């Protein structure tokens, strides 16, 4: 007979075993990417092993190429964050205000407006490219040194998904809190800032993180609206050396990618707890 203790131990062992195996499979591509930065092209395409046979540092050495002084890796990363950070801040502000409007007030046409807003969620970006480009061009935002075409739209809560998410989350915040705040003398705006926003924090953190990741990875936006190599963000810099005709060194592209995702990874890990809480937000009505 196996004792209860032993049985527990065996079951724990199997649980961990399965988790470790599956976890390893999930993280394998990332590990492979790290190891591939030390491999030559031929080795990259001929196997999926992790240990490079002829390790080379060329990838990292060449990652520092500066294109005649126009742009280098570090500068491209700074460029990225110089528009990603304002985008994140503006998105949170505008989305929270818009969600507040939809979540807490009744006004004429609310249902229709909400439906219209949601419908934009299903509009693919490709369809928008040309009309948006023409519009921004008449405003003089194309190739603006301040990335106006990328930043300004976020002031108007264009990311429907976030608005929707915040509205859902807000339903879980009891209206009594608003009323209590009003009795204590808050006006509508103060209610948002002092009562609703702190309660919304987990959801706001998820919005910020999503926007941060999406904007850092966005390729087509900067490619359309940034026409000066010195202003290129990392997403474009990574691809600069990818020559379709003559081939290129993959280890270098991977090395650049790896370096450029480090800040995103740090931000993600720092905000991990808040983030996970935020994703499940709105799923259970409190």
């Amino acid at each position, binding site marked *: 007979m196996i004792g209860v203790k032993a049985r527990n131990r065996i079951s724990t062992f199997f649980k961990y075993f399965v988790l470790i195996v599956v976890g390893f499979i999930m993280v394998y591509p990332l590990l492979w990417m790290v190891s591939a930065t030390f491999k030559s092209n031929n080795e990259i*395409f001929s196997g999926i092993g992790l240990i490079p046979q002829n390790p080379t540092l060329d990838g990292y050495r060449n990652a520092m190429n500066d294109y005649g002084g126009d742009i280098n890796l570090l500068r491209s990363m700074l460029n990225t964050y110089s528009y990603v950070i304002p985008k994140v801040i503006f998105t949170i502000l505008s989305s929270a205000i818009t969600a507040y409007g939809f979540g807490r007030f009744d006004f004429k046409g609310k249902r229709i407006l909400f439906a219209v807003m949601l419908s934009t969620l299903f509009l693919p970006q490709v369809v928008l490219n*040309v009309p948006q480009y023409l*519009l921004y061009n008449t405003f003089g935002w194309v190739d603006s040194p301040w990335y106006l075409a990328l930043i300004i739209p976020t002031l108007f809560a264009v990311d429907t998904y976030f608005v929707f998410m915040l509205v859902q989350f807000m339903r879980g915040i009891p209206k009594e809190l608003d009323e209590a705040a009003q009795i204590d003398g808050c006006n509508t705006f103060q209610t948002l800032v002092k009562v609703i926003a702190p309660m919304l924090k987990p959801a706001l953190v998820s919005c910020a993180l999503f926007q941060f990741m999406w904007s850092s990875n966005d390729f087509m936006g900067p490619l359309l609206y940034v026409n000066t190599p010195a202003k290129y963000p990392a997403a474009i810099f990574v691809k600069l050396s990818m020559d379709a005709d003559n081939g*290129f060194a993959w280890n270098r592209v991977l090395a650049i990618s790896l370096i450029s995702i480090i800040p995103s990874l740090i931000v993600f890990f720092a905000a991990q707890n808040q983030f996970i809480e935020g994703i499940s937000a709105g799923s259970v009505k409190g």
Partner: protein
Amino acid sequence: MKKFLALALSVCLTAAVVIGCGSTPAPAPSQAASAASTPAAASAAGLQPADGPVELSLSWWGGDARHEATQKAVDAFTTKYPNITVKTNYGAWTGWEDTMSTALYAGTAQDVDQVNWNWIFNYDNDGKTFVDLNTLSDYIDLTQFNEAALAQCTVNGRLTAIPVAMTGRIFYWNQTTFDEAGIATPTTFDELLAAGETFKTKLGEEYYPLAMNQLDRMIFMVWALECEYGKDWVVDGKLNYSQAEIEDGLALISQLEEAHVIPTMEKVLGDGAESFDKNPKWMEGKYAGIFEWDSSATKMQAALNEGQEFVVGEFLTGFGDYKGGFTKVSLGFSIAESAEYPVESAMLINFLLNEEEGVKLMASERGIPLSKVALQICTDNDLLNPIVAEANGKVLAWCEYNLDPTFEDAKLKSTDGVYYDVMDGLSYGDYDLAEAASILIEGIEATLAAA
């Protein structure tokens, strides 16, 4: 108060929706056009270089070496003409066409643009996108380019791009594998068939003298048919080959598969590589031949494992009495209609393609130069990659036929296009020859009709 706030919020939202989906009728790109028209009209009238400072812009796609060479050439240009400054914009091929097509449509493209050959057909339907370069022949020496190449860049009588280089498909062989098999690289159809058998018996089932994916097969078939029948693939917007003739060509592909000359599509797709330069079997020499663009030689050569020798083949004979195959303009330079200083733009193009200083710096970064003087300068100074130069020389000396602009239409050429469907279907046995031929004909005719 509440109502007012709600109203304000809804206004804010409406603005968001409008900006988000751009549903307002987008204003025409009048600003850029009107800003450009005044000085352009003034200088275009007499077509004289402008006095005073001039700012040009130049765009291209490519890789590191091309970025670097072009930057140096542009620096040399601005040193030669101190009153001109050039703003450059460059990137990789991925997404570049989307960006450029949007910019061309909006009138914000750079003054001088590196263009893919099909752009001049796709984005200049109304003749308002690119400048007719014939009007600038005082500043670009057009006599350096052969007539046929210029004709390929002429749409409705307007020369809208200067061809930089011509490219065509040619055979490359892995000499090392052929040495192992104990035979010479093939020069005739019969030798190619025999090589299939030798590879199979001497080296093993895994070895093939030639490997072709779906698009390679299509181009190879057209090449072989042109060798046999001696006529262009498409003439005056009509497919020039009959059902029977195309069945003939498809039968040839099947014959090569059966004779163990080329691996079946099942095998090639089973290798799991996106293209042959990333396919371990090409790297190791198990696939010992490819039918590729001359300009791709360096990429394919670099992909081979160490110790393998890469050689340019001869065009195979024995397919017919003619010299089949087509050349196409691999890329060109155009001047956008929105350019403020067309004359200086033309001078920049001429500097890059025809003048010694520029040519030496650009060398073969955009392919083996088509310009006669540039080719001479590059050869004299030993600036060309010998393999690419050899391949390009053979292609230009052999190929006699023209490429139809719709041949590379996305509906045909893309991975879900007609060529892939037909070649996969034939190889997997889903279509018989007659079926495959009629699907191909139908697809091509539909594309031609839409053009």
